[in-house]
């Protein structure tokens, strides 16, 4: 539903709409699950810390938006109406006051999201547009959601993320220095008994780990990008003692090389670490193997496992 001319010029309303190449349930999730919402909410350059998101009528949505210049903008909304997965209505109660309604329309597997913000008066609306660029901000926000959805839907990407209560440069150092890595990298009970290398573009980190279930495992990282304190990129593979690339011991079709991107984002003094894995230099078979493993995690048949687990327990 595009904005009509009268709505954009002289009314108290701001409207923006965008169609996303994603099913409605997924788009709904992006709007109602704080873990996702924090990733794209707000205009370009903004990040968010969501303190509370209670998605039900009367529930509060409290977040701090961090501007590109470091300014924090505390915001509070109250949800008025929650009709999953079609519509949510919410009031911005921390000023400037407005009532917003977001609708989700699905058609041919795509979803059109329409956001309508209504202010008390046309004057207030115009002020918010002039001072904060709220109309452009809303367009940018939907653009960020689009980019985030595209990233989410990449079938060959494995993503995992965690928030750490430590400043970004400290966390970055723990990843970038082999001597530090040795102290924590690997699953519970693992011991890195060989750790050599240097984090520089083209540099190689070669390590060996003793893991209870698997015995000795050798691996190697070839660094591609080191951007302190924001980003580390390396090519990950199994290796032998001499540092040569080897196949996964259990599956010959598992990708030999996974591009690993670790990003470090500041969230109000804490640090979000996100690890991404994508197969590179992979043939169809390797890529398919990776996707199949990934899809099996979220396949519609996961209920089967729950049932199986129940069965095994009883």
């Amino acid at each position, binding site marked *: 539903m595009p904005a009509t001319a009268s709505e954009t010029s002289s009314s108290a309303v701001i409207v923006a709409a965008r169609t996303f190449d994603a099913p409605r349930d997924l788009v709904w999730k992006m709007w109602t699950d704080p873990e996702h919402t924090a990733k794209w909410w707000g205009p370009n350059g903004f990040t968010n810390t969501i303190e509370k998101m209670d998605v039900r009528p009367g529930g509060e949505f409290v977040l701090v938006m961090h501007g590109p210049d470091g300014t924090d903008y505390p915001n509070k909304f109250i949800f008025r109406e929650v009709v999953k997965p079609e519509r949510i209505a919410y009031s911005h109660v921390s000023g400037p006051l407005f009532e917003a309604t977001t609708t989700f329309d699905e058609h041919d597997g795509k979803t059109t999201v329409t956001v309508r913000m209504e202010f008390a008066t046309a004057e207030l609306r115009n002020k918010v547009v002039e001072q904060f660029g709220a109309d452009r901000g809303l367009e940018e926000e939907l653009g960020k959601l689009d980019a985030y959805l595209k990233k989410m839907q990449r079938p060959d990407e494995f993503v995992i993320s965690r928030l750490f209560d430590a400043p970004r440069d400290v966390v970055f150092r723990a990843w970038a220095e082999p001597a530090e890595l040795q102290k924590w990298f690997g699953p519970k009970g693992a011991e890195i008994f060989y750790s050599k290398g240097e984090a520089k573009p083209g540099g190689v980190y070669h390590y060996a780990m003793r893991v209870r279930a698997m015995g000795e495992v050798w691996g190697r990282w070839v660094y591609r990008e080191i951007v302190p304190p924001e980003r580390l990129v390396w090519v990950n593979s199994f290796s032998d003692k001499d540092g040569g690339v080897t196949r996964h011991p259990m599956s010959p079709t598992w990708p030999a090389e996974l591009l690993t991107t670790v990003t470090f984002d500041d969230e109000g003094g804490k640090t979000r670490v996100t690890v991404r894995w994508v197969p590179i230099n992979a043939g169809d078979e390797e890529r398919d193997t990776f996707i199949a493993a990934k899809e099996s995690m979220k396949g519609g048949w996961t209920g089967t*496992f729950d049932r199986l687990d129940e069965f095994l327990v009883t």
Partner: protein
Amino acid sequence: MTTTDHLSVTFAALADPTRRAILARLSKGEASVTELAAPFDMSLPAISKHLKVLETAGLITRGRDAQWRPCRIEAARLKEVSDWLDHYRRFWEESFDRLDEYLRELQKKEKKNARNSKRNK
């Protein structure tokens, strides 16, 4: 077949979106070939080919009745595959746990050092 072989066969079988959709349908209960073919714009022989691949991989079994050969999902084989990536997820989760602990210790030490150097001034 060794574990290595059958994992690769299972991965190959799962690599196709139609076959994954068939498994999703079967997770709700057994079904005939005709029922499975209904949501797809595909001929029965094409669907049968997919079923054959799934059966060879041990992901489904089929009834004996010559007329009505219902397909059934085999959870054990699927679980192996699901465990596969879950293993990596655990690898990272546990690494994150250890990193969390390590960072905490590190900051405790830093604070202590800062306090001591203040006292020395």
